[in-house]
């Protein structure tokens, strides 16, 4: 089969239709292939156009096949300005002699692959946005963040956190903040802020599980296990046992422990555990059913930017029922999980 279809160009549908009825088998196959591709673009455009309200994603204006990551890694050389810095590795270039650059490049690739292969989502904005990662941010900076355009990774202070690019779940977490920004755009305070954080952990752990070949049973469900220093070992957060990841972990496991005015990373333990409970109840890979339910909820136009845990929970159940059936094991798992963490449906 030819690697290049010469009919993947602008041809009127009537002509494609005529070619599809040709006696020439190769020409017929090429025309059918082009028509299928054209149909896919039409669906994507229609879906995008129906989702503009309240979402930041712009309607698709240029057809894009997708599935091709475009990464650029920058070296901040310990500067703390939120500018990109010097390009040290662009897409397709060979590995540099700097482990943070390699980890950042590979981690962004794994995260892109997760979103593309699982949801056919083409990057952060769904339209092939370039992934920009800035390493060596600040001096001994014990943090990583998404600033609305790019991801920044510190080298760690050695006490609390170490090199943050070492955690593929961390990279998945930060990139997912971008996805959330282009979808529900959850306000970063209160329960919507905790949901924003939880969604980043939910997809960050799936990126790690998929990259390492782990399923719901074999995963440790720990966040940040590869980037903690001695004071926060063995991990930053546990989705399975919120509050038990390290001696300082402040996450509650259910609504009885909800902290009014607490940090968004604190109360995120509650929806984190709900996701773990769904995935572990269903077994297999977290991205077989639990992940798609959460992803559909994140993209659901009914999810407001100021959503509460209860509103989010109800939408996860609605999406599970819509996709798998009202009495399905998936819907029952979702219902049971929110009941366990004491979020009433």
């Amino acid at each position, binding site marked *: 089969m030819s690697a290049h279809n010469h009919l993947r160009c602008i041809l009127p549908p009537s002509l494609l239709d005529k070619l599809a009825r040709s006696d020439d088998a190769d020409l017929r196959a090429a025309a059918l292939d082009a028509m299928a591709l054209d149909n896919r673009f039409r669906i994507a455009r229609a879906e995008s156009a129906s989702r503009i309200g309240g979402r930041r994603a712009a309607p698709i204006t240029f057809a894009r096949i997708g599935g091709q990551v475009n990464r650029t890694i920058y070296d901040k050389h310990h500067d*703390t300005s*939120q500018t990109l810095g010097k390009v040290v590795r662009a897409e397709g270039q060979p590995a540099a002699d700097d482990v943070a650059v390699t980890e950042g490049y590979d981690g962004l690739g794994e995260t892109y692959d997760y979103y593309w292969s699982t949801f056919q989502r083409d990057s952060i904005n769904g339209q092939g946005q370039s992934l920009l990662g800035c390493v060596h941010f600040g001096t*001994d900076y*014990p*943090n*990583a*963040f*998404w*600033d*609305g355009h790019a991801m920044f990774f510190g080298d760690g*202070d050695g006490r*609390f*956190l170490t090199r*943050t690019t070492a955690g593929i779940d*961390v990279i998945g*977490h*930060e990139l997912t*903040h971008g996805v959330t920004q282009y979808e529900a755009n959850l306000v*970063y*305070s209160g329960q919507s802020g905790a949901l*924003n*954080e939880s969604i*980043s952990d939910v997809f960050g752990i799936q990126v790690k599980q998929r990259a390492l070949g782990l399923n719901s049973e074999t995963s440790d469900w720990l966040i*940040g296990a590869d980037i903690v220093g001695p*004071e*926060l070992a063995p991990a*930053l*957060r546990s989705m399975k046992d919120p*509050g038990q990841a*390290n*001696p*300082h*972990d*402040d*996450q*509650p496991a259910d609504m*009885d*422990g*909800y*902290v009014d005015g*607490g*940090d*968004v*990373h*604190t109360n*995120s*333990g509650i929806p984190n555990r709900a996701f773990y409970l769904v995935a572990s109840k269903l077994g297999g890979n977290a991205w077989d059913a639990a992940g798609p339910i959460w992803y559909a909820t994140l993209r659901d136009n009914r999810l407001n930017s100021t959503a509460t845990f209860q509103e989010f929970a109800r939408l996860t159940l609605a999406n599970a029922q819509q996709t798998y059936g009202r009495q399905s094991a998936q819907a029952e798992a979702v219902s049971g999980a929110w009941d366990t963490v004491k979020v009433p449906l």
Partner: protein
Amino acid sequence: MRIRVRRAGGFAGNIPPLAAELDTAQLPAGDATRLEQALDALRWGATAGPAPHPDAFRYEIDVPDEPERGTAVVQEQQMSGGLDVLRNHLQEHGVIEPRRGRG
């Protein structure tokens, strides 16, 4: 002048804030002057604004011997200039505050 500083938030925001105290009398004169000038320029007692982006650090500064000032909440991009001394001191000597009680 005694100064207390706390750092909250960040990717590890489920860990209670890191806190430290510093006395400008222990600093080289130049650093103490720069720090005190930077402190004078802060907005004291103002409520914390929204986080500039996910996983951002937030710093809270107060002067225990001048409680009338209230607390200054500073986003990490503003922790530069004379405040560098405070940030570096916290990073080197800060201690994690006790875990909150559970309801």
